[in-house]
């Protein structure tokens, strides 16, 4: 009869634990090609190929060799953090809103005061781009493209089909609610239960639009939150009621999945949001209906229309790079060269360079969807007068990409696990800890 000796057992299980622990610690180890400029970024679909094409064009023009490291968003930041911790940071890498301050604060980024406005020409940049390059007075970030944020997308065909008045870009919050309820009622009358809009209570960029519509900011200049407990309570209550009265998709009607499971595609609700305007591509590829943008509503009829045109992705130069000049040349090329824009398309948003943006629009070669995305930025610019405060270090757990607290709490309210007050208190106490 087989008997397992205690010592053998412990040895076996011990090495199993060790092996498991080891496997979880050791990620892929990136080797660095000597002499060439390493550039790391993320993208989905054909974005990576497009961005790599732009780099190839640069390498050809300048004679600077490039080692492009494009990956998916999943895993990008793990790898980047590991590379930086190991002293192998890429020369140039892409960052984004929820964590870029973290990288700057920790001294991993090269200050670009000597480059921005010089090697990297900013003469023709939109203000929205120029306003996003600094943290605490030091320039670090080079924006790759612009977009509205959030991008509220609606299905014009559906609205037309039920005779609900087309959306007015100057609508107010009350009109938004009313429109959602009306379209929900009209659609549900035909048999299948439908709602006005998706549940947007957990979407950080939409919350940002809401607090901006009240004249506030997501984050204050001093690095704390830019809104109050009352604002957040009002926000969560809005969505709690919306889920209850048929205005927004309730939790039991949620579908799982990506674009294809979105209410605007499944016919569950004709208004959804995307993190940025380029998301329209994803939705439009799945439906023949006419999709378009409408801004987040004004807070009330006495309040201004407030929109936000902003970069959605930035490139930075590593503090340890020994090729900062070459890196700056690359960044100038990516933002100011027509060839780069042609290669990248809208994979990082519309060009930050006003002249190039106009050129692309005038050339008339844009697809229908691309034209809508360009037009969306153009329409929003006059209303995007107040720049966004760059999110401070520590904002990732609150409003970052991986189960941000703002979303988790909205879900907990939706599933009746906690009430609005508890959610608000929790958000603010976590903000205290992280910011």
């Amino acid at each position, binding site marked *: 009869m*087989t008997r397992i000796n205690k010592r053998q057992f412990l040895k076996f299980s011990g090495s199993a634990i060790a092996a498991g622990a080891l496997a979880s610690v050791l990620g892929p180890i990136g080797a660095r090609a000597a002499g060439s400029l390493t550039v790391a970024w993320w993208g989905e679909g054909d974005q990576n190929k497009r961005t790599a094409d732009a780099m190839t064009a640069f390498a050809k023009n300048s004679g600077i060799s490039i080692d492009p490291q494009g990956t998916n968003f999943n895993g990008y930041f793990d790898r980047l953090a590991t590379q930086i911790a190991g002293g192998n940071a890429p020369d140039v890498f892409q960052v984004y809103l929820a964590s870029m301050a973290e990288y700057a604060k920790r001294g991993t980024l090269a200050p670009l005061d000597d480059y921005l406005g010089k090697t990297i020409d900013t003469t023709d940049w939109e203000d929205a781009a120029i306003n996003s390059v600094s943290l605490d007075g030091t320039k670090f970030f080079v924006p790759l493209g612009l977009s509205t944020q959030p991008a509220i997308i609606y299905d014009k065909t559906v609205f037309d089909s039920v005779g609900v008045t087309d959306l007015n870009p100057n609508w107010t919050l009350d009109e938004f609610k009313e429109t959602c309820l009306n379209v929900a009622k009209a659609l549900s009358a035909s048999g299948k239960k439908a709602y006005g809009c998706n549940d947007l209570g957990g979407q950080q960029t939409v919350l940002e639009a809401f607090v901006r519509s009240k004249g506030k900011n997501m984050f204050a200049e001093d690095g704390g939150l830019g809104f109050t407990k009352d604002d957040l309570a009002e926000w969560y209550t809005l969505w709690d009621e919306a889920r209850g009265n048929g205005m927004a998709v309730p939790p039991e009607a949620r579908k799982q999945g990506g674009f294809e499971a979105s209410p605007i595609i499944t016919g569950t609700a004709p208004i959804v949001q995307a993190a940025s305007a380029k998301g329209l591509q994803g939705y439009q590829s799945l439906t023949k209906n006419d999709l378009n943008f409408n801004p987040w509503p004004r807070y009330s009829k006495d309040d201004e229309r407030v929109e936000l045109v902003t970069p959605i992705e930035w490139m930075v130069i590593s503090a340890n790079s020994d090729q900062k000049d070459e890196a700056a040349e690359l960044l100038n090329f990516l933002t100011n060269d027509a060839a780069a824009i042609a290669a990248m398309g809208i994979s990082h948003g519309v060009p930050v360079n006003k002249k190039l943006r106009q050129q692309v629009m005038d050339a008339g070669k844009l697809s229908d969807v691309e034209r809508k995305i360009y037009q969306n930025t153009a329409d929003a610019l006059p209303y995007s007068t107040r720049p966004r405060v760059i999110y401070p270090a520590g904002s990732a757990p609150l409003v970052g990409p991986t189960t941000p607290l703002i979303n988790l709490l909205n879900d907990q309210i939706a599933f009746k696990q906690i009430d609005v007050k508890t959610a608000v208190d929790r958000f603010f106490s976590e903000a205290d800890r992280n910011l």
Partner: protein
Amino acid sequence: MTQELGAEKSQGKSLWVTARDKRAQTNGAAYAMLTPWLIGFFCLTAIPMLASLYLSFTDYSLLSPPEWVGLENYQYMFNGDYRFWPALNVTVFYVFVSVPLATVIALLVALGLNRQLRGVGILRSVYYLPSLLGGSVAVAIMWRELFDQNGLVNNVLGFFGIAGPAWLAVPNSAPWTLVFLHAWQFGSPMVIFLAALKQIPADLYEAAELDGANAVQKFFTLTLPLITPIIFFNVVMQMIVSFQAFTPAFVISNGTGAPLDSTLFYTLYLYIEGFGNFHMGYAAAMAWVLLAIIAALTGFAFLTARFWVFNPDD
């Protein structure tokens, strides 16, 4: 032995030294052979483990050097982190439901395959296949597709007129899909059970049959007690591995633990804290607490073993 040594000693110092040299020589050779393993052990296991123990007492963002904070990480974990306990809860649920389930299934299948049938070898291989695929990403993705709103599971249910839920979008059902995934991968415990069943001497069964025992009686009075050591082994090993489960939860929830943290396994939360939220020191502390939990439960299992595990020496 003692006498021999004494004899050597009495013959004078020189011989004693030679003996020591000889011993040193053989030891040296052994160490030389062991070097690759020793290097591996120290560089890849011991030093990283000590480093992680140190990091667990620091505030470490990965981007800048760690700063000593004492017990702060551990204090926050038990007293303040509102996501820690739910994550531990989900993991404990997963371990305590899926391990017994997988063990019972493995045993039943092993019993079924423990006969002389034509083609039983092929059957055994087929049942072992899911485990060969292991905790791989591909399997987890397949699982996600199976339990998708419009996936195979709901299609089959639909055939019977049942409208299946969005399994992975509802907090009540999402962790169960992970439990089923584990239970489906019963291959390795099954193979071990099969080996154990084959070792039970046939004469025991013959004796039992002579005494008039039926199949059920044979199973409960003979088979089951005799394989308790193997059940013990399988349960403990699976428990250890299940506490560390990461891939299925990561893939099925897209790395988020959603919906509502219902698939937020301990290791997934550790990963989110370390890499997503720049709390690598806290993540290291979580890793050590997990080690303590697994060690404690394993120790507890050994304590209970004397009451139910068959020991031929008793």
